[in-house]
């Protein structure tokens, strides 16, 4: 027994059986389908092993015109991977990635499903495929302890694009850790042919830390319960479909996206900026149910199929058009299309000129003159050293006010800090070394070990709720007090660092 693992022996038997099978009879489709419907006769079907792909790739369309017995082997792995730059997460996956491997079968296929739970898994898992007709969608038959394997079979009765997911309690946590994917059951006659097919899934992550907080993040059940997700992303990570990883297409091609939402909670307002979906197979069904669609809603645990022809080159941005999710939480992907321009469809920018919104010509002239005089005044002030010095002094006084409200409690009014606890600002090499880092510390806070003037500190500075001007003023004050002469910080600097570190 020990020398010959059981699964290998089973596999050998299975292969042997397949080898000795007679060639499938050239029977009519109806006859064979009926056989597929009855389990005892499933043995008569030709056997094939499903080709699984990682997102955004999709297995090739099925060309056979008869049902088969399709063997699917999916491995559950718990893996630590990148969620965003500097942020890691322990993903629970079907196949090692989020979303899970794409499965493609044909209506009427008899699917023999194997779920392997890797020995390093912490917890048991199972799978509920929405394509399965039967209790739990397979979950009841696939509950699998770490280091074990389960098998069940089903006939793919209904064509369409279906979500699959882990359904082990607490199920929101299993899904929030990345346990979802798509299974496409092609209709008997297939879908219309397209040039490119891609696989995209949206899901949210409930990290203990705020969006962007670095390090290995834990799952936060309270945030999940309240549906407050710091991350809402496509294909398991911020930026998984941008830059080198963007989807590719050429002008003149038709692109099909198999899009699903794993959730566990949040519905997507799926939209591609700059494109109109020529065809939407609503809710992942098989009918081209709607044409010329801007945004299609996809529920958690649901899917859609969208087709669109690329008419002009450029970058098309996939978003959840509930836009805070795209702008602040990561729900952005890109499709880059190469090819010749077509100015009749889209011209690009043709005119760029000043617009002044007054009604009369005299008013326009007055506004222009006022604008010129204002610029001249600012130039004159800037050129006068006395006014410049006064302006700088005002800034320092304003900065001092901020310092004495927000900073002095830890860093002390004399900027010396508290030895071993709060680092000094006066003559601080840490401060002098990196202006942007200093700005970021004020805006975002600072934690963990640092060395200041040769002495180690390990404490936590909370982020300060200050405007761009206040931040610039207080930093300029700090950098020019207690013997410091480290230059100044402008509101523009602060604005730039703030947007760099969203």
């Amino acid at each position: 027994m020990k020398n010959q693992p059981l699964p290998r022996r089973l596999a050998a038997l299975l292969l042997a059986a397949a080898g000795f099978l007679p060639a499938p009879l050239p029977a009519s489709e109806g006859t064979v389908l009926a056989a597929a419907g009855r389990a005892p006769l499933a043995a008569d079907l030709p056997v094939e092993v499903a080709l699984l792909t990682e997102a955004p790739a999709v297995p090739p369309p099925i060309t056979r015109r008869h049902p088969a017995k399709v063997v699917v082997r999916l491995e559950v792995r718990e893996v630590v991977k990148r969620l965003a730059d500097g942020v890691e997460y322990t993903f629970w996956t079907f196949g090692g990635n989020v979303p899970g491997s794409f499965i493609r079968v044909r209506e009427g296929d008899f699917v023999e499903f194997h779920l392997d739970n890797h020995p390093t898994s912490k917890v048991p898992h199972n799978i509920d495929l929405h394509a399965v007709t039967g209790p739990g969608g397979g979950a009841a038959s696939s509950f699998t302890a770490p280091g074990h394997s389960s098998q069940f079979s089903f006939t793919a009765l209904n064509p369409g694009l279906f979500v699959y997911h882990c359904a082990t309690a607490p199920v929101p946590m299993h899904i929030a850790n990345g346990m979802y994917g798509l299974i496409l059951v092609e209709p008997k006659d297939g879908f219309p042919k397209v040039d490119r097919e891609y696989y995209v899934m949206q899901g949210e992550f409930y990290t203990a830390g705020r969006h962007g907080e670095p390090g290995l993040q834990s799952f936060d059940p309270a945030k999940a319960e309240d549906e407050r997700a710091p991350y809402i992303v496509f294909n398991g990570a911020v930026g998984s479909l941008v830059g080198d990883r963007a989807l590719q297409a050429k002008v003149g091609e038709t692109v099909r996206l198999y899009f699903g939402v794993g959730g566990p909670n949040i519905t997507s307002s799926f939209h591609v900026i700059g494109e109109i979906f020529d065809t939407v197979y609503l809710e992942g069904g098989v009918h081209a149910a709607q044409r010329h669609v801007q945004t299609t809603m996809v529920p958690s645990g649901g899917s859609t199929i969208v087709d669109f022809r690329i008419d002009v080159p450029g970058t098309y941005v996939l978003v959840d058009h509930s836009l805070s999710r795209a702008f602040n939480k990561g729900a952005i992907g890109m499709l880059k299309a190469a090819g010749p321009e077509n100015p009749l469809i889209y011209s690009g920018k043709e005119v760029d000129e000043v617009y002044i919104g007054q009604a009369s010509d005299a008013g326009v002239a007055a506004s222009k003159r006022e604008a010129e005089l204002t610029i001249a005044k600012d130039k004159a002030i800037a050129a006068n050293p006395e006014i410049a010095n006064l302006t700088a002094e005002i800034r320092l006084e304003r900065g001092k006010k901020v310092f004495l409200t927000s900073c002095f409690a830890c860093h002390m009014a004399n900027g010396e800090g508290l030895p071993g606890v709060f680092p000094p600002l006066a003559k601080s090499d840490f401060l002098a070394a990196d202006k942007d880092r200093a700005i970021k510390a004020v805006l975002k806070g600072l934690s963990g070990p640092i060395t200041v003037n040769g002495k180690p500190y390990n404490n936590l500075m909370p982020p300060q709720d200050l405007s761009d001007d206040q931040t610039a003023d207080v930093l300029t004050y700090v950098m020019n007090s207690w013997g410091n002469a480290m230059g100044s910080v402008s509101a523009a600097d602060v604005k730039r660092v703030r947007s760099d570190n969203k």
Partner: protein
Amino acid sequence: MKTGLPLLLLVLAAAPAPAESAPRPEAERAAVLVAVPAGTYAPLLRQRDEPAEVSVAPFLLEARPVTNAEFLAFVTAHPRWRRSRVGPLFADRGYLAHWAGELELGPGAPADAPVVRVSWFAARAFAAARGRRLPTTAEWERAAAAGFAGPDGAKEPGFQAALLAWLTRPTPAVLPAAGSGRPNHLGLRDLHGLVWEWVDDFGTAMTTGESRADTGLERNLFCGAGAAGARDLTDYPAFMRTGLRSSLRGSYTVPNLGFRCAQSLPASPPSAEP
């Protein structure tokens, strides 16, 4: 060929496991028993006619999980529980598979790390050889509910969060030493944060019978069905412990599942044993 052997071994192993020889004293010394006072346990899931709380009689529980060194001493003294001898009904193919050899721990199994990849049958035999037993679910949960500072961990800020942090990390390739964790209020270590632990009645986690179809509660806890009848829907760690237990069979061995032994208190006859 040893085709006929497994059957024979199976029959041998099926016999009850009395102490075949005296356990090694050094292994015994390490297994300090801690008194767990009487208390209550509120099951996560229960049938409609079952009580919301069950009382747990005072008992003794080992302060930390059983180590590889202790289990090595056990299989040395009890050859029928060695890798090559144990029958497939009593331990699956993963049994002690991380040990370097039949009686050799090796780098994957430090002597002071908790023993894992042991079946429920093997864990019970070990406990019996020690004159002890496995704790019941109620006993284990009652002991593990204690926080670091007080009797109720659920009331301590961060206790649940620390639990979840462990639950969402993969199992390391080599486990740290048993007993190195912070002791809880009762003086017990590593009930959380190191490995899962077998309980004597793991099979009752959610099922009332062998067939899933005729049970009132879903053994598998899938999807929303898992939430029906639960005591506290926010106690994710409790769901995961219950889920883990209900995914097991007595012969299963799991790379992050160990055990510790318990002992009834002879001085409290009314409710020492159910």
